[in-house]
């Protein structure tokens, strides 16, 4: 029963703060509401006993991405700034687009017949996760892992090249 209470609590938090994230006109508050959404999602994972994913959610999203977002807001905007309200036509069309997206997603989800898990708790062992991460067998993730790291390296080098100031050639 406590699990259900926690589930509804986290669900309500996710829904409320998601709406608040896109409706607030102060940009830093939007980032903080987003942080709450991500932390509540981590809470859901914790209540499912999926600790690893919860901790990843906290490190990558809450501790990494939101901190970077907040950092860039701190560098670029001032406390008194407010986002301008979108013109009526734009709001109507975005509302329509959102509704269409939501209907599509809901239809897909509701059509899928979810089978309740009756077996034992699928407690994932951290050793198994680690082993499959570096194994190159059929179910191993060594290749995707390496490909993603090459992609990240390329992105990092790109960022440095973009950020680096052009040095004037001596004439």
């Amino acid at each position, binding site marked *: *029963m*406590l699990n259900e209470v926690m589930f509804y609590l986290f669900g309500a938090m996710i829904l409320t703060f998601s709406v608040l994230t896109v409706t607030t006109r102060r940009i830093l*508050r939007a980032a903080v509401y987003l942080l709450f959404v991500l932390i509540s999602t981590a809470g859901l994972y914790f209540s499912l006993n999926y600790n690893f994913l919860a901790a990843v959610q906290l490190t990558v999203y809450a*501790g990494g991405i939101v*901190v970077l977002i907040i950092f860039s807001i701190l560098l670029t905007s001032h406390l*008194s700034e407010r986002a301008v309200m979108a013109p009526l036509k734009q709001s109507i069309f975005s509302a329509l687009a959102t509704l269409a997206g939501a209907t599509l997603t809901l239809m897909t989800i509701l059509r899928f017949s979810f089978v309740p898990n009756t077996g034992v708790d699928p407690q994932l062992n951290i050793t198994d996760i680690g082993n499959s991460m570096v194994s190159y067998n059929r179910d191993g993730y060594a290749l995707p892992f390496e490909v993603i790291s090459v992609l990240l390296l390329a992105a990092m080098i790109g960022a440095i090249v973009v950020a680096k100031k052009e040095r004037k050639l001596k004439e």
Partner: protein
Amino acid sequence: MAFNIYDFTTLTHDIHVGLAESFSPVLATTIEWVIVGVVYLLFVALFGLFLVYAERKVCAAFQQRLGPTRVGPWGLLQTIADFIKLLMKELIMPRKADRFLYNLAPFIVIIASFLAIAVLPFAPGLQSLDFDIGVFYLTAVSSVGVIGILLAGWSSNNKYSLIGAMRSGAQILSYELSVSLSLLTMVVFAGTMQFSAIVEGQRDAWFIFSGHIPAVIAFVVFLIAGTAETNRGPFDLAEAESELVAGFHTEYSGIKFAMFFLAEYINLFIVSAVAATVFLGGWMPLHFGNFESFNHVMDFIPPVMWFFMKVLGVIFVIMWFKWTFPRLRVDQILTLEWKYLLPINLVNILLMALVVLTKFHF
């Protein structure tokens, strides 16, 4: 209810069974939550006050003064008096501050500290969360705390606060890398991330002895990076009094200031406790291979005492840093992390992997 100072497993088990017998499962769990929460709150508040007192005494000793002596024996009640004074201060809200974020910031900082403290094993059976991803969980939740500092600096509508928050953010983000990597080195050695298993693995010898060279390097790096992560001197330029008034908490007064202050000392405790647990054996007594009688004598000291002795030792070293080193500049701090600590750490992990593979350890 069997109480045994050497092993708390029976005590916590008895409490759990007792509650489960007399209440419904939901109520029993709720009561357990409340008990655990109150115990942690009390511990953190009292230990925080003690640490403030200890800091003043240590500082005084380094500067050849006496420190607080008037209130209570040896000035022991001084920080309690200070705390009561802080509670009665007016809460000032800067004009044009972002009210919501301004009030939220201290809570984020302190909640992150509380989440981190939950995985620390104080003694056998005295640990509230024992995840198999313990070390990873700890780095994950402690990375959230910096958000509180950034928010505090931005929402105060004050330039000093903003500069302090930016400095602190850059510093904590960079040094988090070194903290995680040095812990990762020890995870490679221990073969597990679970705190209880890490402590159990040090039954014969603490990791800093059995892991020899790479473990010592990791320990030193961890101490430096941990000091930087708690925003303490010589890395305290986020709240450098001579330049930035008080940095990110310039505009905070009364109990909200006390929360930042307390969180800083909890973080000091967490860093020291992690250092004590991962490198110095946690609550494990000091054991030397075959000296049976020596090991037996050491076993008489309760594990809780061992844990706190080690933690206080590390805390003393970190306070020693603060009162003997001059403050670093922001570029020096970033150079130290990115050009020295990070490469040393990466090489050290390889060294540790080599040591583990060749079984060149005790």
